[in-house]
């Protein structure tokens, strides 16, 4: 099995640069599987916290502000999916790894599975949602380690919105259902 090692610098990045510069290539290494798990853990934790403690609490419980696709115009909160994508864009500007939110029931069709990896990954998640689907892939002439993690409905806000949206292709979601997946792509070159 082909195994690639990624320098611990990625771990430093996740920790907000706490390790500082110059860790060097001779330092301890960590497998891409573990690195992707760490990245996903941060994404999933932030995503659940935002959905539950910000959107659900302020919108559905305390009813002080709404979340909306048009959050700028409506002076509201970004939807949890928008929050993740905005974070992904900012992270991408630094170069390095990528992450994305994809679903077979995406409201925006651009976010439906499109690559072979994504199609294989969702097929695998449908039978084993608790284990990420992992693979080495090539895209645009570059090599990546990719992992797809199940994205579950962690808050009632997720379920209510997707079940009510006029363009949602599925409207029978329940709490803790798999609604899609988070892809983490680590460049190897």
């Amino acid at each position, binding site marked *: 099995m082909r195994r690639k090692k990624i320098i611990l610098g990625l771990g430093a990045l996740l920790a907000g640069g706490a390790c500082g510069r110059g860790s060097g290539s001779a330092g301890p290494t960590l497998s891409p599987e573990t690195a992707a798990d760490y990245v996903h853990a941060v994404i999933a934790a932030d995503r659940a916290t935002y959905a539950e403690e910000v959107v659900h609490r302020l919108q559905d419980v305390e009813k002080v502000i709404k979340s*909306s*696709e*048009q959050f*700028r*115009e409506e002076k509201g909160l970004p939807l949890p999916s928008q929050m993740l994508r905005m974070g992904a*864009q900012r992270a*991408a*500007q630094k170069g390095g790894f*990528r992450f*994305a939110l*994809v679903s077979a029931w995406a409201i925006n069709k651009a976010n439906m599975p*499109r*690559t072979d990896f*994504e199609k294989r990954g969702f097929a695998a998640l449908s039978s084993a949602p608790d284990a990420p689907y992992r693979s080495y*892939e090539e*895209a*645009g*002439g*570059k090599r*990546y380690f*990719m992992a797809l993690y199940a994205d579950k409905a962690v808050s009632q806000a997720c379920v209510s919105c997707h079940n009510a949206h*006029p*363009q949602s292709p599925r409207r029978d979601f329940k709490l803790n259902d798999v609604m899609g997946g988070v*892809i983490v*792509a680590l460049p190897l070159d």
Partner: protein
Amino acid sequence: MRELPLQLLRGLRIPLRLKVGVLSASAIVLLTAAFLGAARSVFVPGPTSDGHHLFEASCASCHAPFRGSPRGKCASCHPPDRAPDTHAAGLFDDPRWAHTLEEIDAQECVACHGEHRHADGGVTVGPDFCMRCHDDVLEKRASHASFSRSSCGQAGCHNYHDNSALNVAFLTRHRDEPDRLPRPQVLERTVAPGKGSAEARFPPELAPGQGLVERWRGSAHAAAGVSCADCHERAGAGFVRAADDASCERCHAFEGATFRSGKHGVRRAAGLPDLSPAAARLPMKPDAPRRLGCGTCHEPHGVDTRRAAVEACLSCHDDEHSRSFLDSPHGATWRAAAPGSRPPASAVSCATCHLPRVEAGDTGDRRVAVNHHNTLTLARPDRMAKLVCMNCHGLPFALSSLLDERLVRASFRGRAARTSEAIAMVRALAREAGGREEDTR
């Protein structure tokens, strides 16, 4: 007689090598003189786009020596909008979308916006370019099955970069608005806080006429405590008779910066002499002013923005849309405003739509100012609709009107021939959703 110089040259028996050398040197001298002088346009290899032709003599604005047109050069004038770019260059670094770069190099502006050749609306890749990556849309979406491959942008439904006024959620939210909103009004300009009373003080040898001082006394400048010295004193030069535009920008920095971003001021941004309206491709009046600066539209002592908002525009612009303005419904609201007074918030001028009032400044200094980027709202009908028209009109009326070219030329006298396709589609979507709800009851 015409052959005499050649005969002379033959008679002189000048070696061929010397003749070639002299001719080559002359050509080099002439071309260098043209490049360094005012005739640089002779080097332009083809028709420059409508957006760039006014500063085509400034090669360095777009080109770097021996490096072509690097992406950063485009971004120096076209920074990303506040609205998210649907096809931002960084998106294509994502392995999900990397394969689409084989169809069109969407990370390079010039892949679609070629220059010095014919461009249709600034685009040089043909109207069906969306299909290079989205070729399955017509097949997979029943609602799109009857559309042509080149109608994505042309029908006013999609905008490659900024879909903030064309996405389904925005269209749905505004799909049933009336033609005219109950309280039509543009944003109220923020008046800068006064800095105390001002006196007309100037060196005796530069004393202006009394009429000029009287006009100043009644102006917003005097009310805000702006005195003669505030504009006429220049560091190192003392009191000068003619204040320049830099003195305006000491207080009106936002207005100056946005002026240089639009066609009116872009030559100044490129380091070229100020725009002469005669250089424009749109029809201009023969007696239009010869240069465009702050004082061309604004009388610096009277500071009557009514003149700047309509009269100044119509002193240059001579196209059908401009000529129709005063007799149009918008023009009627402007003519109804009492002369000499501040126009009401419902009065529409040329500037209302083309130099829109926007919220500017940072968090601690939010204010409503006039964006002098005169081509900002002309880029796409949906931008004009969202930024300007929707202050007074519903989105369906605004989009449909802006997409009707005949109506635009007539300065909106009449009604749009048909409803915008995008609005019609979201209305159909709502009807379908309503039908589904009925079925499930």
